[in-house]
């Protein structure tokens, strides 16, 4: 029996959050953490969490497992369980709505701030805009972000300044459009980021890189933005 300790909080009935111990029969299989959560919910329907695709592309089930953020659906028990114990907590640093469900409002607001959509003032051609495979390759490692918030909620700078520091996820997308040869708003984009907080609160801690379930590297993207801002200033 796997020992699971799960964070519980229902604003209607609980004055404060608490940890609940549950035993789960995994049948000796190396299940995914999400499977374990489903087994818990089958016993106790009041446990709340988000989930959808169960294959690591929708980004719904970012949770903190034994202290590390990740997607429950693609984290096998063998990767996280130590001494037969699994501690499940909501992503840190965001307000909890209920149990493992956090309010992602601040996270999405930072994403929206970078205007994550292509801007091009020239009239669109009758076919697609051409882009060389080399230019397209510049978007690899950027566009794949699934907005699960594992990175930003693992970032101490984002914990301190969630309202002013864009955070790794938002900055990764900011760079995705800065790097796109089809986008013509580079100057405006950089101007909007050019303050002490939006980008420069990144201290290169690299928790984001460490937890990203898609293997992306926000710190590197932030470095590129930093260079663009600095070379513009000189």
């Amino acid at each position, binding site marked *: 029996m796997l020992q699971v300790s799960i964070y519980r909080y*229902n*604003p*209607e*009935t609980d004055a404060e959050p608490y940890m609940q111990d549950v035993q789960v029969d995994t049948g000796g299989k190396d299940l995914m953490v999400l499977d374990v959560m489903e087994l818990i*919910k*089958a016993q106790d*329907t*009041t446990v*709340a*969490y*988000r*989930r*959808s*695709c*169960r*294959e*690591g*592309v*929708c*980004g*719904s089930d970012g949770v903190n497992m034994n202290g590390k953020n990740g997607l429950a659906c*693609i984290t*096998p028990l063998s990767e996280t369980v130590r001494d037969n114990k699994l501690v499940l907590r909501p992503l840190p640093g965001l307000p909890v*709505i*209920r*149990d493992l*469900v956090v*309010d*992602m409002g601040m996270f*999405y607001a930072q994403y*929206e701030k970078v*205007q*994550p*959509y*292509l801007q*091009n003032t020239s009239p*669109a051609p*009758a*076919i*697609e*805009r*051409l*882009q*060389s*495979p080399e*230019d*397209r390759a510049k*978007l690899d490692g950027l*566009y*794949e972000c*699934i*907005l699960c918030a594992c990175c930003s909620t693992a970032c101490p700078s984002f914990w301190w300044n969630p309202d002013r520091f864009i955070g790794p996820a938002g900055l990764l997308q900011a760079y995705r*459009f800065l790097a*796109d040869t*089809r*986008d013509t708003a580079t100057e405006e984009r950089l101007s909007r980021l050019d303050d002490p907080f939006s980008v420069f609160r990144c201290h290169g801690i690299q928790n984001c890189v460490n937890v990203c379930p898609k293997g992306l590297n926000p710190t590197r993207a932030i470095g590129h933005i930093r260079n663009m801002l600095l070379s513009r200033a000189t």
Partner: protein
Amino acid sequence: MRAALQLAQSGYKTAVITKVFPTRSHTVSAQGGITCAIASADPNDDWRWHMYDTVKGSDYIGDQDAIEYMCSVGPEAVFELEHMGLPFSRTEEGRIYQRPFGGQSKNYGEGGQAARTCAAADRTGHALLHTLYQGNMKNETVFFNEWYATDLVKNQDGAVVGVIAICMETGETVYIKSKATVFATGGAGRIYASTTNAHINTGDGIGMALRAGFPVQDIEMWQFHPTGIAGAGVLVTEGCRGEGGYLINKDGERFMERYAPNAKDLAGRDVVARSMVLEIIEGRGCGPEGDHVFLKLDHLGEEVLESRLPGICELSRTFAHADPVKEPIPVVPTCHYMMGGIPTNVHGQALTIDASGRDQVIPGLYACGEVACVSVHGANRLGGNSLLDLVVFGRASGLHIERALREGIDMRDASDSDIEQAMSRLDKLNSSKGGENVAALRKELQNTMQNHFGVFRNETFMREGIAKLADLRGRIEGARLDDKSMAYNTARIEALELHNLFEVAEATAITAEERRESRGAHARDDYQERDDENWLCHSMYFPTDKRVGKRAVNFEPKTVDTFQPKARTY
């Protein structure tokens, strides 16, 4: 979201109600691409060839006017996506990369395999969904994120005037009034135990339509995707076979050469899925239980796999514990797509049938994407056509609503009793006592569908299945809701979703038993031949009296000659 974008761009007040944050919808899981004759891989490609392939793929019950519209408008819709920023993979010329997909040919089946499926690596759905959300953000569409629509509100004239929706965070329930309601609620693959579909694919739109008394079309047509990872159900794109992968049985034989000598592994999905099941039934399956076959990719080399199919490598390592660079992936046909749905015309307007058997538009209701049956997929969808379908008809719905709003939509307000009627299911659930556990009932439903309405069907089995469903109806309607709390109560949502799953399952079962032939994805042991005399038509399921009727297929495209039904071989 494509429909919302159309309206928001034109300055109309548009809201999207969605039970998950918009980038978490199941479109995100689409991998291989969006099939469309943009003439990048082949400068001579022609949308009419794509139309021919789609008509043939549908086993001739796809509506030819709708397929004509989709294939001819498609390139414009795909270029719009590119202009919006979708990061398509590229050719050396800088154009959109296109890969070969199943059922795609050149020159009306005479010119060999076509490469027509536009791709962003193997993450096309993800790229497309994010791009559409970003486009909506740019145009200031209003989003009701994590709001769950429970039922349609109809006025006394039978017109749809909005929906009842619950805010999941607070539990607040409201009537959202609208001049036009567009369903883009996706499929219902969760009626089966083994599915590539996300947990959220519970057929909410179909459930709402059936409860409102509206019919559904061709709902017996369910696509089983040949390559779901055995055990996990997770999808492995057909693009793997497009890039040169192939299926082998336990003897290492490339068995599709026997079943489809020309197209081989790129025959229609229904054909490949049936061939796989036959291999397994005849004892040539792989693994200790002989219950799957292998998809071989290692011969493509690490470079191709990592650049063209990076997501697949990741999924296979995670869910099959197999590294495609070195070893084959265990795969099995897995429920994937609902070809049927709410019947619509090419403008996305939902249809019903009047007393004299004529199509009648349901005022105020539109549907597009998987929930709709326009029908471009008929009895079997071709790979890459679902993304094209949702973009083209989402756009068409938006365009039509724009026109209608400009001309003025005049509908009577819903009365209090109309709203009460729409609220009744939720009220009943909220006051429920006793009853059975939702998760257990859901499992029973899924197993029933899996065992009685799978890849191969016959009357005896289906009748047993229908009897089991009849028993399940009352039990599911009376399912227990222990947790009546308001804040983010997922137990309530799951109970409501189960009702929808059941409606879809029952409609599927009754219609499947009625269609006494084999066509496309609907394969019967007891009626093995296609019966064009009696069944070259759509099925229509009417929920009020659980009756199955027929509706004519459209054979009148506007600009090309009709493609006449012929034997379907690959």
